[in-house]
């Protein structure tokens, strides 16, 4: 039995007058990969951002409903948003390493959270880079600029940077859309390993990727969650005609 790590109940989200999420309810299981799929503009990124309150940063956003992390409502006024975002971290579509060394990129978060001991930082950096399957490729260039890494390496660096602050949930918004097939497969491989320790939610436009990496797939359309279920079932026998039309490429 796996527990729900995150539970979303009757979630509505408005950008001013525009309703981007409509009464969405969804349980995200612990140590599982959940893929969010759906056409452009259906609300995937918006939904992802509600899970660590990144939407709070956007003007005019109103959220109704309930999102709990380990049973605790993350929209309660007394929740510390900084520590929430440490527990629920995010990787973006385009790799965004800081213009500093590989080492400093990974040590950035731990330093902010007050770790100064050099030996301890070394350990965190190595562990995180190993966790992101990047250590072997960068161990002899730790002090060179991260901007010199390939796109695929930069993306894994961003994942290492996230792992360094020991999150529990990883949100990934189209993490491989800017990468070549080999780097993409490396990230997918990594995701499958990371799920043993973390709970992962990934947005992807690549149906095959959703099928390969995820345990659960959720299909969004115009702000509605149309269908959510076991990935194997969704890709062989979806229940809703709209899901079938979308995943088989017949959305006209």
């Amino acid at each position, binding site marked *: 039995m796996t527990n729900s790590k995150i539970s979303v109940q009757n979630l509505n989200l408005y950008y001013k007058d525009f309703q981007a999420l409509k009464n969405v309810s969804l349980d995200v299981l612990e140590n599982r990969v959940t893929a969010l799929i759906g056409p452009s503009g259906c609300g995937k990124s918006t939904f992802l951002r509600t899970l660590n309150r990144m939407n709070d940063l956007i003007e005019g956003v109103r959220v109704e409903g309930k999102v709990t992390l380990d049973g605790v409502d993350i929209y309660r006024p007394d929740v510390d948003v900084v520590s929430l975002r440490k527990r629920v971290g995010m990787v973006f579509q385009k790799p965004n390493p800081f213009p500093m060394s590989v080492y400093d990129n990974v040590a950035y978060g731990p330093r902010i959270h007050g770790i100064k001991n050099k030996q301890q930082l070394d350990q965190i950096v190595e562990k995180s880079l190993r966790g992101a399957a990047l250590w072997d490729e960068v161990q002899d260039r730790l002090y060179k600029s991260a901007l010199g890494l390939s796109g695929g390496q930069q993306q894994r660096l961003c994942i290492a940077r996230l792992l360094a602050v020991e999150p529990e949930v990883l949100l990934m918004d189209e993490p491989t859309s800017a990468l070549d097939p080999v780097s993409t497969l490396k990230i997918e491989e990594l995701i499958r390993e990371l799920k043993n320790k973390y709970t992962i939610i990934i947005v992807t436009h690549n*149906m*095959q990727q959703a*099928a390969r990496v995820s345990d659960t797939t959720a299909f969004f359309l115009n702000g509605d969650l149309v269908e959510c279920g076991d990935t194997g079932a969704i*890709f*062989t*026998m*979806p229940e809703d005609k709209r899901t*079938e039309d979308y*995943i*088989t*490429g*017949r*959305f*006209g």
Partner: protein
Amino acid sequence: MTVRSNFDKALMEIQQDILRVASLVEESIYNSMEALNSQDVVLAAKVIEGDDVIDDLKEKIENKCITLIATQQPIAKDLRVVITGIKILVSLERIGDHSVDIARTTMCLAEQKLIKPLVDLTHMAKLVQDMVRDGLDAYVHGDVEKAREMCDNDDEVDDLYHKIFRELTVYMKKDPETIDQAVYLMFISRFLERIGDHATNIGENVIYLVTGEKEELN
């Protein structure tokens, strides 16, 4: 309007090709039984040769399916159409092989006077031929009800098989001279019974195609 019209065309083509194989296979069941009843070795030879055409065609369609999987990554219903198509092809090929078995047996029987008119065998052959046709009809129309009805006929085929078996045993006991021929006829009833089983598999595949559920029908 669909955005995958080329892919849809390829799927349609595969289904059309499978129908062609099915009609060849039906014809070969029919001809093998015609040859048996009229003791026509030329027709029996035609059935045996014709099987190469069926095998080649099956190979070609199978390759089309494999290419489609490799290049288009069909999922959901599309995947079930392709996978079911491949499975139905395998069943059809086996059915064709059994027609060849019947034709070969016919050749062995050619010189002998038949001990009786082959009423039940002919009826059995008609039943399995209809099963194949209905099975393929159910496939192209995604008709679950028809697939189930078709599979129900397999009970009658099995009953006939047991009836023929018993009758031939009686003949053999009464007159050992009939043993050679009776054994051949038993084989033929067995081949027809196997054809019925393969047709039932086609029905089960159709049900999977439409519902995604595996149903055991015999």
